[in-house]
């Protein structure tokens, strides 16, 4: 069993770790110096998803999404939809692996072949998934303290560089820009849909929903503070132009005259958080697959899923540019379809068939 607190930490880390990769540059390019408001906008999508997940959780308590789908869309529809969700989670895991590989390739190991980096992370992920969801939850609890430490260190190291006049005039592109900047990052907040698989193994009580909402607010706050740092240090036009803005920020950090260029030390925890996210999504992939296929032992599917994702990530995104374009243009539509559209449709289905479903779930 895992606790609500562990899952809250996990929510923060899952959204934050890959959020800081593209959110700042997208939010700033769309919303200008009002980009720091965008995370709070995209947070609302996460909240909607969270409400739907909790709505279904309270109706079908010990069941996961795959297990209560048959009640909503029938046996075959459930099988297809369940496998589609498995595919979705698998692609999220694939994307995270590819992002880790990309970051490592750009920042740490520019001369190492991509496939080597990818293979090593895949092996680590396989081991991590074998350790189980409980181990993942404990890992998150263990490493969660590093996150505020990392942000505080960033702030402390960059305080001297911030130009506060960059924030004036407030929201130069208006609310429209802020909302446009919030659209793509909302796909990360929508990833709380995994809770539909995790809530049944958590020791819960009635007051859990506010704590999950709070964890979303905290995430938005953390992301927003990073965006503020980026706008203050790099400026709007610079930040909108470069890739890996957070990494650029890390390169600026210096303490005194002797601790300079310590970006590698900031990258270590960041990579760890992304690793945790990959673990979570492969885990949910395995859970979802074994539940929709009715497998008793799911462990043997770990290696194929991870290794396939390694190969596919290499195949689909041969270079960083492809990955970037895919993430900016295609990914939000694809992800929000699974994260927001299907749950809303399921909610409507439940509303129309609620009497029948209630009698079915009782038997």
């Amino acid at each position, binding site marked *: 069993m895992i*606790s609500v607190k562990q899952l809250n930490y996990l929510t923060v880390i899952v959204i934050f770790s890959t959020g800081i990769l593209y959110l700042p540059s997208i939010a700033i390019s769309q919303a200008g110096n009002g980009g720091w408001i965008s995370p709070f906008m995209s947070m609302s999508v996460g909240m909607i998803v969270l409400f739907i997940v909790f709505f279904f959780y309270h109706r079908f308590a010990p069941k996961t999404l795959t297990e209560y789908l048959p009640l909503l869309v029938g046996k075959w529809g459930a099988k297809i939809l369940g496998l589609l969700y498995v595919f979705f989670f698998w692609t999220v895991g694939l994307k995270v692996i590819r992002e880790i590989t990309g970051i490592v390739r750009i920042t*740490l*190991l520019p001369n190492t072949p991509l496939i080597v980096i990818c293979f090593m992370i895949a092996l*680590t992920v396989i081991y991590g998934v074998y350790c189980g969801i409980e181990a993942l939850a*404990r890992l998150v*609890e*263990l490493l969660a303290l590093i996150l505020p430490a990392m942000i505080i260190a960033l702030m402390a190291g960059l305080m001297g560089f911030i130009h506060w006049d960059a924030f004036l005039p407030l929201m130069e592109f208006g609310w429209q820009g802020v909302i446009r900047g919030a659209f793509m990052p909302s796909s990360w907040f929508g990833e709380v849909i995994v809770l539909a698989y995790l809530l049944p193994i958590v020791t819960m009580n009635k007051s859990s929903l506010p704590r999950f909402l709070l964890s979303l607010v905290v995430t938005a706050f953390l992301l927003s503070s990073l965006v503020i740092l980026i706008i203050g240090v790099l400026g709007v036009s610079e930040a909108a132009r470069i890739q890996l803005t957070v990494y650029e920020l890390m390169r600026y950090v210096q303490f005194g005259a002797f601790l*300079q260029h310590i970006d*590698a030390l900031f*990258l270590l925890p960041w990579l760890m958080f992304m690793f945790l996210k990959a673990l979570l999504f492969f885990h949910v992939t395995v859970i979802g697959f074994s539940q929709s296929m009715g497998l008793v032992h799911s462990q043997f599917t770990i290696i194929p899923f991870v290794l396939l994702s390694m190969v596919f990530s290499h195949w689909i995104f041969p270079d960083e540019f492809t990955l970037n374009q895919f993430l900016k243009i295609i990914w939000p539509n694809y992800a929000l379809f699974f994260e927001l559209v299907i749950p809303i449709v399921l909610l409507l289905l439940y509303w129309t068939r609620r009497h029948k479903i209630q009698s079915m779930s009782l038997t």
Partner: protein
Amino acid sequence: MWWDNWKHLFAINQVTLDHEFKLGEEGNTEGIGDAPVGGKPVSVGQALRPTPGYSHHTHAVQNHFTMPKFISPDMRTNRVTLQHLFYLPENMDIVLREFRLGGPHVATVLAVFVDGLVDKAIINSHLLEPLMLLANLDESQPEMKLVDWIKGALLPGNQIMELDTWDGVMQNVLAGSTVILIEGVDKGISVETKGWEHRQVSVSQTEAVVRGPHDAFTENFRSNTGLIRARLRTPKLITKIVQVGKLARTDVAIMYIKDLTNPKLVNEVLRRIENLDVDYLPDTGMLEQLIEDPPLGVVPRFLATERPDRVTYGLTEGQVAILVGHTPYVLMAPIMLWSLMQAPEDAYLRWPFGAFIRTIRYLAMGMGLLLPSFYIAVTNFHPEMLPTDLMLAIAASRERVPFPVVFEVLMMEFSLELIREAGIRIPSVIGPTIGIVGALILGQAAVAAGIISPLLIIVVAVTALGSFTIPDYNLGFTVRVLRFGYIISAAFLGFYGICLGLMVLLAHLVSLNSLGVPMLAPIAPKGRSSPDIIWRAPAFQMVRRPEALGSKNVIRLGSPRRLGTRDPHDKN
């Protein structure tokens, strides 16, 4: 001839050295005695391993002698049985002393004991003297039975047991008691006469402290339990003793505190120990490996300590202590990883100092594990992280060194491990040599010869110091071995390799359990406990036992109501 004498000498050699000898072939198995004599040759292991259902009794059947279960009143039969039971006269440790009982009863008495296990002074003064001489002083014709008379009036020993079966006789004799058999009586009397040689309680060698008690456990099982009981003077301290081993039995004691330690925990420890299927259990180190789960783990799941004060403190927290006969190390379980990093002194010092020492120790462990790999990652992959002057200094010092950094580091780590191992194995007479040789090789000569850069010596020395500060010997080994893994991963993948390695290690650690308690317990998963990991609260605030141990009472001092807490078992 003149060389006949020489031939004679060679002939002696030929007799003593039998080149045809092969263990396990027919005809040679007599030396082993019990081995099943069959047509086909058996391997050594097969010959020594008992066949299913093997025991003294079935063995006796092979020799066309039926081993009786109970003691017979007939002395002649008993003698024959004893000869078969202890393999007399082949076995020369066993002493049979036959004598006549003094006093009104006329009876022959046979005393059986193992030479070397017993205190002969006790046998002479408390057994032979009363039975042979003092029995004559009792003029009154006793009304009671012979056995009761001997037990009640003649044997002044403090632990006396009446035995019916030969199995009991065997157990008692082998444990150091003396058993007497009396003519015409179908019972044996066992008198406790243990008195083998053992080391006296002395100063703790491997867990030395400045402040705090200095005594340590010894190889004597009973004095070890005594050391614990002398400190914890409560009738709630329970000692359960089970015997382990199919070939030869070893005493294993489980100590816990009734109404405090979780009974599920005690039952699980008992279950695991009772289900052990081993020939012989020499040490707690082997017991630890046999009962810990999962069996493949890099970190010890038990705390092996030789300090009674540590054991007693653990017992009062709700842990279980496992003692094995003739071993000066006691196992404590369940433990968290942090207890392996704690020295008992931390608690005896004032709290800020304890916290300070622990911080140093954790930093030291981090360095012992990661410093060489960080050195490799920085110099090979990220030289820009260092201040320019230092980087130039490193580059200048490495100018003369022909090897890559990894090779240099591995070489130095290897020679360090060499010195460490040699330092342990070397006879203490020539011990100081190792320091001179080590210092010369590691310090001067390697640099002068141009195979090592001077900075690396600092790195390796600090690493070694760091790993020496780890209080637990087993955990020190973990760090020593894992360090090489990190060196190699850093050599291939720099900081990325270190990061992946750390993730694997952490994922491994969080999935480890020590008897059902997560190893990183009060942190991951979070549990209520008084701060005792790095930060240590003042002693008067250390109110709460670690919740993860599942003790029946989580509050250490005062009443539970004082803090408004509830019993953890209420909610279950």
